[in-house]
């Protein structure tokens, strides 16, 4: 493997009519690596995730995901590339409340053939893949699969979100403060499960949070303020 999973160089971004928000000379995330990225709100964290997801285009510089230069792709191709290779977990309310737990987990497979195919290869069917992932994450109860997603506790919902991010083995899992709604013990337990599943699937984990206490659990930790030359000194 010659390419890093994520490779940023000379990345610059500003919203039209606003000063430079991001200026990242270099950043790499290796395959299988778990990285803790500390970023307080307003530090350009959300924008960076948007850039990595291919939702926004940088003003300058390059973003390579698995060796693919995102800036060279069309918006539609970036969308496809994102769902094929990246799973997302957000803070809270990650799930579509009107779908069942199982349907929520299977969502990415409806939008990405690559992930549907990988899920089938590994587990036989998308259904089985969803059930297996949920079981690994501690949601073994079969009845639970068909329950409405919003009938679950927050902790359970976050595990469902993790299963959804991991289904079809994307190379990268991006987690944006997924533990902020959980108490400390639940956080660590959730992280251990997430690590195990990422390891199992061979996925890298980019974990963005302002909660420094979790940092020691990761392979590496970085602060966005250090990485970003455009950050104001107050944030450093």
């Amino acid at each position, binding site marked *: 493997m010659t390419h890093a999973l994520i490779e940023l160089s000379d990345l610059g971004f500003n919203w039209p009519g606003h000063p430079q928000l991001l200026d990242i000379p270099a950043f790499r995330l290796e395959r299988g690596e778990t990285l803790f990225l500390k970023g307080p709100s307003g530090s350009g964290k959300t924008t960076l995730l948007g850039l990595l997801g291919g939702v926004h285009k940088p003003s300058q510089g390059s973003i390579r995901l698995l060796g693919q230069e995102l800036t060279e792709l069309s918006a539609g191709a970036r969308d*496809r590339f994102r*769902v094929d290779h990246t799973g997302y977990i957000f803070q809270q309310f990650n799930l579509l409340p009107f*779908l069942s737990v199982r349907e929520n987990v299977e*969502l990415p497979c409806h939008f990405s053939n690559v992930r549907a195919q990988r899920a089938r290869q590994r587990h036989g069917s998308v259904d089985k893949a969803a059930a297996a992932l949920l079981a690994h994450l501690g949601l073994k109860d079969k009845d639970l699969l068909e329950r409405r997603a919003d009938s679950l506790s927050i902790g359970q919902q976050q595990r469902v979100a993790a299963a959804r991010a991991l289904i079809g083995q994307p190379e990268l899992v991006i987690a944006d403060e997924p533990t902020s709604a959980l108490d400390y013990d639940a956080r660590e337990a959730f992280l251990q499960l997430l690590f195990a599943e990422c390891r199992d699937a061979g996925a890298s984990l980019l974990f963005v949070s302002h909660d420094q206490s979790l940092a020691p659990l990761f392979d590496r930790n970085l602060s966005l303020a250090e990485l970003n030359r455009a950050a104001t000194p107050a944030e450093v």
Partner: protein
Amino acid sequence: MYLFRLAMASLANRRFTATLTAFAIALSVCLLLAVERVRVEARNSFASTISGTDLIVGARSGSVNLLLYSVFRIGNATNNIRWDSFEHFAASPQVKWAIPISLGDSHRGYRVMGTNQSYFEHYQYGRKQNLELASGRAFATDPFEVVLGAEVADALHYKLGDKLVLAHGVAVVSLVKHDDKPFTVVGILKRTGTPVDRTLHISLGGMEAIHIDWHNGVPAQGKGRISADQARNMDLTPQAITAFMLGLNNKISTFALQREINEFRGEPMLAILPGVALQELWSMMGTAEKALFVISLFVVLTGLIGMLTAILTSLNERRREMAILRSVGARPWHIATLLIFEAFALALSGVIAGVGLLYVCIAASRGYLQANYGLDLPMSWPSEYEWTLLAGILAAALLMGSVPAWRAYRQSLADGLSIRL
């Protein structure tokens, strides 16, 4: 069709608003179709008020006026025509049959029409249907016999053998009654859905008999009075009638005879073709009918705008839903399609419910409309035109759905994966 399933699930999650929205559309669709059906049916029943008659002849006035009083029992004749003028044309070689009509009296608000046997033989309405008796017989030689239209019999609860008294003039409250010469009900006609139902038919002789001792519009007093029995033995051939209807042997001679009547030297007369006069009359009423239709179109538009509003207001609270969908790989056009589906599903269920509601309404009101307005609303499948209307509504819904779809498209491009509350 995974997107369609998603749209359905999302709608089901907002079932209360969704149901209300669909219900508003259903009501408006039902109204539009009901107006359309009543319109078509009113036009049909209007056009079928009289058929088979080639010419209607009366004293010279306007053609619509003549049609109104001779067929619809509305308004009054300006003048009478002489009996010998009628006999002159009734005997014409082109004429197959002639029906004399004499108007001017009434019974509790219903018009009385003097005529003769040929009325029951030749008068036709609808699809060339002849009048039929529901019970009894047509009036015969005795002048004081009356045949009732179906509605008259129903509304006033008359049965065969009942006696009734006619009133002079056509006002609902009559001051002068022909109470010295009562009539006996000998027949009741079947319902036709035309003004015939609201008419009392007597013979010309009867009409003559009740007026035989009248002079200058007032009844004779004292020994000038003539009793019913005395009248029976007198010559009851009328001096004048109000109008007459003609059926011809050959339709081609219609215009020639019409000209002949209009240029008749004996007295000024007017002959009209019923179809042409009906057209003329309908074109006057057609404006109201069109206005009604346009109004119901606007009601449908209001229903659709309600849907548009409901979807647009939901967009903001659904930004999270959109962002989640984006994060699992939905592209902006997926989001837009989702909203189009949503609009389509709402409109479609509205249309289906609206059509259902229409049939329920028709089933419920059918008897009433038939009895009171002579309108027979069909329970039939939507006509070709109605299908076009329904398709138009769906197309309009799709068009309207494209507004929130476009907004959601822009919104999901701007929001990306970030969830904004």
